[in-house]
C-alpha cells in the first residue's frame, strides 16, 4: 500500500496535473499498471515482512511492482472465494488451502518446481498432471520450553534424539517444573486441529483417513488413547481449559512466562526471538509415544491465470532462485522447501537445526494432512469448506460436553457428511 502511494505520488510529481489525476484514478484496486502484480497473503508482518522485502528488491531489480495485500488469516479464504466469484482474483497468492472454486484458474508451476529443485514429496499432481501449487516454505509443529523455569526447577528436557521422552514423561516433567517454580500452567497448546493431529500421530494414530469407499476411518485404539490424553490434560492444571474452550491466546500465555511449555510450531521462532525478553526460551524435541512425528504445513504459492500470469510466474521464478530464496528464509524464518541451501538463521540457528532434525526423523504421516487435502481437492471431492470437525468436536471434548467415543463418532460422521466423491 505504502509503495503504491509513493509511486503514485512520484508519478503525480513528474507528470502534468491532468495526467497525475489520471494516475490517481488508475491507481485503483482493480486496474493496476501493466507492471504491477497483485499478491495476496496473510501474516507477512508476523514473519518479518519477508515477502514485502523481496517485493522491494524485485522492484529495484526489474521495475515491476509487486503490490502485497496482507489479509487477516481468518478472512483469507472467504476473501479469495468472493474475489473468484466477482472475477477479481489477485495475480498471485500465498494460500493455506486450494479452493475448488478457483482451482481451475491456476497456472502450472511444475517448471518452477523442477528448475529450483523443490522437494519431491511436497509436489502433488492434479488430474491433468500439472502442479498448480507447492509450499513456499515449510512449517512444522514443535515444542517450546520456558528454559528459565526448567532450569530453576532443575528439570532437563531432550535436545538430542537419544533423549526423546514420552508424553507421560513430558507431563510429569512439566508438573515437576510447575511445583518447583510456582508456574501457573505446565503446557499450552494451540487450539487447532493441525496441532491435535500431530499429537495423534505421536500416539501412533494416523488421524482420520479417507478410504477408497469415500468414508473416513481411524485407528480406534490409538486415537482414543490420544484424545483421552488430550481431554485429561485439559484440566486447568496442566493446561488451561480456556485456550481450547473459549479462545484464550496460548501465545500470550506462554509469553507471560508462567507456562512451562508451548506446543505450537516453527513459525513462532521469529516472534519469540523478537518479543520474549523476560525469560529464556528454547526449542525442545517433541515427545513420542512411541512414534516421532510432526505435522507439516506452510503457505501454498498459486499463480492465477490472466493478463499478468506471465509477470507473476517471472516473480515466483525469481523468488525461488537460490540467492533470493535463502534471503527470504533468513528474513522470515522459513524452513526451506529446497534442499541444500546454506541458510543462516543467526541467533535462531539452534531452533531451526532442531526443527530440521525433527522433520527428518518424523514419520511420513507428518505430511499426510496437507497432501491429502490437495489430493481431495484435485480429485473434485469436496470436504466442506472451512468446516473443521476435528477442532469443533475436540473443543466439546475439552469442555466436558461429550466423551471420547462420542467425539470420535461425531468427527467421523461430520467428515463423512462433508466429503462428496464424484
Amino acid at each position, binding site marked *: 500500500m505504502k509503495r503504491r502511494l509513493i509511486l503514485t505520488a512520484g508519478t503525480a510529481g513528474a507528470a502534468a496535473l491532468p495526467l497525475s489525476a489520471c494516475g490517481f484514478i488508475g491507481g485503483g484496486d482493480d486496474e493496476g499498471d501493466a507492471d504491477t502484480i497483485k499478491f495476496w497473503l496473510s501474516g507477512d508482518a508476523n514473519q518479518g515482512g519477508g515477502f514485502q522485502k523481496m517485493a522491494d528488491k524485485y522492484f529495484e531489480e526489474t521495475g515491476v511492482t509487486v503490490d502485497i495485500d496482507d489479509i487477516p488469516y481468518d478472512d483469507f479464504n472467504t476473501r479469495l*472465494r468472493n474475489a473468484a466469484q466477482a472475477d477479481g482474483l489477485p495475480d498471485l497468492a500465498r494460500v493455506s488451502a486450494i479452493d475448488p472454486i478457483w482451482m481451475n484458474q491456476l497456472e502450472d508451476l511444475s517448471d518452477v518446481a523442477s528448475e529450483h529443485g523443490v522437494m519431491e514429496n511436497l509436489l502433488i499432481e492434479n488430474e491433468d498432471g500439472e502442479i498448480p501449487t507447492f509450499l513456499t516454505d515449510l512449517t512444522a509443529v514443535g515444542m517450546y520450553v520456558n528454559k528459565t523455569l526448567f532450569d530453576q526447577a532443575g528439570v532437563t528436557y531432550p535436545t538430542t534424539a537419544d533423549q526423546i521422552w514420552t508424553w507421560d514423561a513430558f507431563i510429569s516433567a512439566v508438573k515437576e517444573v510447575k511445583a518447583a517454580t510456582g508456574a501457573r*500452567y505446565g503446557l499450552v497448546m494451540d487450539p487447532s486441529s493441525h496441532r491435535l493431529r500431530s499429537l495423534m500421530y505421536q500416539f501412533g494414530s494416523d488421524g482420520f483417513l479417507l478410504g477408497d469407499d469415500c468414508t473416513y476411518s481411524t485407528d480406534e485404539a490409538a486415537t482414543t488413547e490420544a484424545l483421552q490424553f488430550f481431554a485429561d490434560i485439559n484440566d486447568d492444571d496442566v493446561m488451561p481449559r*480456556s485456550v481450547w474452550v473459549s479462545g*484464550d491466546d496460548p501465545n500470550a500465555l506462554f509469553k*507471560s512466562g508462567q507456562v512451562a511449555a508451548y506446543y505450537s510450531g516453527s513459525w513462532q521462532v521469529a516472534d519469540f526471538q523478537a518479543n520474549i525478553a523476560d525469560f529464556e526460551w528454547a526449542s525442545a524435541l517433541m515427545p513420542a509415544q512411541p512414534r516421532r512425528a510432526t505435522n507439516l504445513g506452510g503457505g501454498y504459492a498459486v499463480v492465477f491465470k490472466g493478463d499478468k500470469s506471465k509477470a507473476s510466474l517471472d516473480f515466483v521464478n525469481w523468488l525461488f532462485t537460490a540467492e533470493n530464496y535463502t534471503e527470504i528464509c533468513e528474513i522470515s524464518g522459513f524452513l526451506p522447501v529446497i534442499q541444500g541451501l546454506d541458510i543462516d538463521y543467526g541467533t535462531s540457528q539452534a531452533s531451526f537445526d532442531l526443527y530440521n532434525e525433527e522433520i527428518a526423523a518424523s514419520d511420513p504421516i507428518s505430511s499426510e494432512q496437507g497432501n491429502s487435502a490437495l489430493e481431495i481437492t484435485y480429485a473434485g471431492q469436496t470436504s*466442506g469448506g472451512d*468446516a473443521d470437525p476435528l477442532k469443533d468436536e475436540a473443543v466439546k471434548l475439552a469442555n466436558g460436553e461429550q466423551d471420547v467415543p462420542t467425539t470420535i463418532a461425531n468427527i467421523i460422521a461430520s467428515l463423512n457428511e462433508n466429503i462428496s466423491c464424484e
Partner: protein
Amino acid sequence: MTATAIDPERLAGPRKRPGKAPRRVQYRLAPLVLAGVNIVLFGVFFVWPGGLGLAYSFTDYTGIGTANFIGLENYERLFGDPTFYTALTRTLLFAVISVPLMYVMSLSIASLLVSNYVKGKSAAKLVFFFPWLISPIVAGVIWRWMFGESFGFVNYVVTRLGADPLAWQTDPDLALMVVVMAATWGGTAFNMLIFIAALKNVPRAYYEAAEIDGANAWQRFRHITLPSIAPTSFLVILLSSLGAMKEFAMVQSLNSGGPGTSNTFLIQYIYETGFKRADVGYASAVSMILLVILLSIAMLQMWVNRRRAA
C-alpha cells in the same frame, strides 16, 4: 410509516376549486421520485437478499454449485436439532438479562447527567459515550483481557483480595455474565443519549407543581419522568432487544460463544453453519426463524405500546 406518507386526504392539499382537474396527479410522481433512492436501496439491500435467503432456505445450497430444492427439509432438521434450541434459549436468556440491565443503566446515567446537582457533565458524557465509539471487536478483546481467566485484570484483583480466581472463560454462566456486562457497557452510551434528549423535553412545570404538592424525588421520577418518556423507553427497549438478539462481533471476539458451544447465540450458529460448514440452505432456514422471532418481538412491543397509548 408508508401508510401515512401517501394518505390521500392530506396530500390533496388545501381546498380545490370545483370543475378543475384534480391536482393530486402531480403528487403521484414527486413522492415516488423523492423516495426513489430509498426504494431502490431497500429493494437491493433488503428485499433481494431477504428473498434470496428465503429461497435458499428451501434448498441444499452450499455456496457453490447448484441449489437443489428440498422443500421443508431444512426446517424439519432445524426443529429436531438440539444445538438450535440451545442457541435459541441462550440468545433469549442473554436478551432477557441484558435488555433490562441496559435500560436501567442508560436511564440512570442519563438522569444523573441531566440533574442540576451534577458537576463535570461534559467530561462524564464523554466517558460514558466512549464505548460507543469503539468497534465491537475491540470491545470484545478488551473484555477478554480484563476477564482473562489466567492472567486477566479482574482475576488479579480477585486474588489480591484473597479470593479464588473465578472461571470467567470456562464456566458457561460466568462467561455469559461477562458477555452481558460487555454488551451493557457497549450499548448504554447510545441509549443514554436518547434518554438525555427525552428527559430534557419533560416540561419543568410538572416537577415544580409536584414539588409544591410535596412529592419526593422518587415520586416525581415514578409519576412524571417515567410516563413522559414512555415513547422513548419503548424505542430503547425495542432497539436493545433487537440488538441483543443480533449480538455477534463482540461475542465472537470475546469468547467466540465459549466455553465450547455453551454460549453460541443464534447469529453465531447461522455463521457457523452457513460460512464454516458451507451449509447455506440450513443457515438460511435458521435466519428465517430469527427473522420471525425479531418480527414477533417488534410487533408485540408495538402492540403493547399502542394499547398503553390508547
